[in-house]
């Protein structure tokens, strides 16, 4: 006989998976809109961002109900508190996907070619992969995958500084409208932030499994 508490925890798990999936979809669609110059995806991303915000509130109130009514302890408490932290990271990912399409909307009107020398494509692939893996690590409660995501953050950070260098070089050479480079720079920054949020999610997954949070319990500062 399953208690209401267990049912609510399962419900929380399902809602988090759905929210994670929405984040993946939002960021994937945003980048597809950028690279494929597909304007039709812009409202899709904004719609997803709205849905992510709604999901956040929904999950938040579910967590609050669980905390107040059931007064969970130990592992269950960790699950709920990390869920509360995770949703705010997911919500930020959704916002940043929306920010990216807003920039992209401007760029669509201009004639430009994203030079293949810029690593923005590979950076976006890596960022999406991190989001997917962090959600996967939560879904499968896979500690190893979560730790891989945390380690992976450095790669995205390196890519960011690489892109920055490349853009500075391109601007020095002149040529295309300088605005495009600034836009690309901002997109790269958003991607870097998204990767950070994915790392945070992975850290909360680690915490909910082991009870130890890498950064808070005296890991890297």
């Amino acid at each position, binding site marked *: 006989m399953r208690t209401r508490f267990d049912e609510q925890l399962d419900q929380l798990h399902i809602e988090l*998976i*759905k929210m994670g999936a929405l984040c*993946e*979809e939002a960021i994937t669609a945003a980048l597809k809109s950028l690279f494929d110059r597909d304007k039709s995806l812009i409202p899709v991303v904004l719609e997803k961002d709205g849905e992510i915000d709604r999901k956040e509130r929904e999950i938040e109130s579910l967590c609050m109900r669980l905390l107040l009514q059931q007064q969970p302890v130990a592992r269950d408490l960790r699950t709920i508190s990390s869920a509360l932290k995770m949703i705010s990271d997911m919500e930020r990912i959704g916002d940043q996907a929306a920010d990216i399409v807003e920039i992209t909307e401007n760029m669509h009107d201009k004639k430009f070619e994203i030079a293949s020398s810029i690593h923005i494509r590979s950076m976006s692939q890596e960022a999406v992969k991190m989001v997917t893996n962090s959600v996967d690590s939560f*879904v499968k409660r896979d500690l190893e995958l979560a730790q891989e995501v945390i380690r992976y953050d450095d790669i995205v950070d390196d890519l960011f500084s690489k892109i920055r260098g490349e853009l500075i070089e391109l601007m020095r050479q002149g040529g295309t409208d300088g605005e495009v480079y600034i836009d690309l720079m901002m997109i790269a920054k958003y991607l870097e932030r998204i990767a950070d949020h994915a790392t945070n999610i992975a850290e909360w997954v680690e915490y909910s499994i082991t009870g130890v949070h890498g950064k808070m319990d005296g890991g890297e500062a």
Partner: protein
Amino acid sequence: MTKRIFRAIFYVTLVILIAAMVIILAFIRDFNKNNYREQMRNEAIYIADGLSYGGISYLESLPKDSNRITWIDQDGVVLYDSQADASTMENHKEREEVQEALASGRGESSRYSKTLAEKTENFALRLEDGTVLRISATTLTTLSIFLSMTQPMALVLVLALVLALFLASKTSKYITKPLEEVDLEHPEQALVYDELSPFLRRIAAQNRQIQKQMRQMQHRQREFRTITENMQEGILVLDTKGEVLSYNTGAIRLLGIDHISEKETIYALNRSEGFRTCVEAALHGSHRETTLEQGGRSCQLLANPVMEEEFVAGAVLVLFDNTEKAEREKLRREFTANVSHELKTPLTSISGFAEIIKNGMVRQEDIPRFAENIYQEAQRLISMVQDIIQLSRLDEGESGMEKIPVDLAAVAQSAVSRLRPLAEQKEIDLQIDVEPAQIMGVPHVLEEILYNLCDNAILYNKEQGSVCLRIRDEGAQASVTVSDTGIGIPQEEQERVFERFYRVSRSRSKEVEGTGLGLSIVKHGAMLHDASVSLKSEPGEGTEIHLVFPKKA
């Protein structure tokens, strides 16, 4: 039950014990009283006897610490009392026992002291001279007997209680032990109490029924599992909350996951948008289907709600791989497009030439040249249609394809001799290096394979090039190699040359007459013979096609 029996026995023992004590106490009291009176009566008679001889001095000689003796005259005046001064005592005429003695010769009475703890028993006897002798004795009341007996009684009670406790627990265990030992798996063997036999028989019958139903259910489940496990399609059964109740290995394979843990939510298996909306729709009671694309494979998902009366009781998801179907569909569309295109080109030429002639726009002397063109195009159409027929025959695996022992060398000779004129015309050196190799095969298909291979080698060759057809008997198999010094096939196109109508670079195919079906016929013919086909080619150097036929068909 043990507890209840224990308590019952214990209380019964307790009640009996207390009742027994009360009854015994009453008897003791009664006996005591009677005994006492008897003694007092005897004593009075003795003392009266003594008094009649010794007078008052006899009374005074009696010991003072025994029962109280009072001598009263017929008017109630106390003449003597053993425990008090007789002159100070009041008149005893009104005392109950004295009155009785004066009237009937003897009288008795008993009086309680103020504390009720003692009782004075009086016995009065009328002497012959009319005076009355009274003997008084203090006796113990029931209460005091009881009080004096409390200690031993408490001891007995405690002992009895302990004994009762012990025996009650033993007895209750003894009664319930056979019940505990009843083996409910085989209740009919344990008829301990007759009163229980109806229950046990009923339990046994129900056991048998349950076992039978369990066997049936297990059987049905095995049946279901065997059926679903052997399906290529994936099946998932979900409850209302989207938890996986049942699945088959097909589902695991098609979803591209390693395992499904118990009661896992379906969203953990695939959270893509299409999948989610389908599942949600099914869980809300409507049928939905979609195509999932993942890892280069395409997978059809059907989500059906399971309705119980008017409520959704869950959902069944069926997945099937339609990658091949989609590919076949694509190939078929391409084939149709290619066939119509390839057929249209010569037909357009024929129609064009014919139209010009019909309109009389051609000079008489040019007509043979036009007729030649029409003839050439018609020939091309015919050969193409023949190739298509050949291919579809191979596709259908039509009758007339019975395999018989065939010597590849002979087939090769025949094919080569048919191609000799073409080779000479193109100035290609057509070499043949064969040794007898017997395989099981369909002669005209084999000849078609060799003919097409050599034909291609000649057509797509350089000027003054050469073609070599080699056949080797390699024991269990026979190999055919056709090599040329031709233009070769680029690496990235080598995969595709066996496709129907596929021709390396369209522009070049205009120069060379060909239907684009030759290698396709080779491939299908080889498949019919279970032969393997491999291709080695270097652009500008030449091409080598190698076929290996197993000897046993």
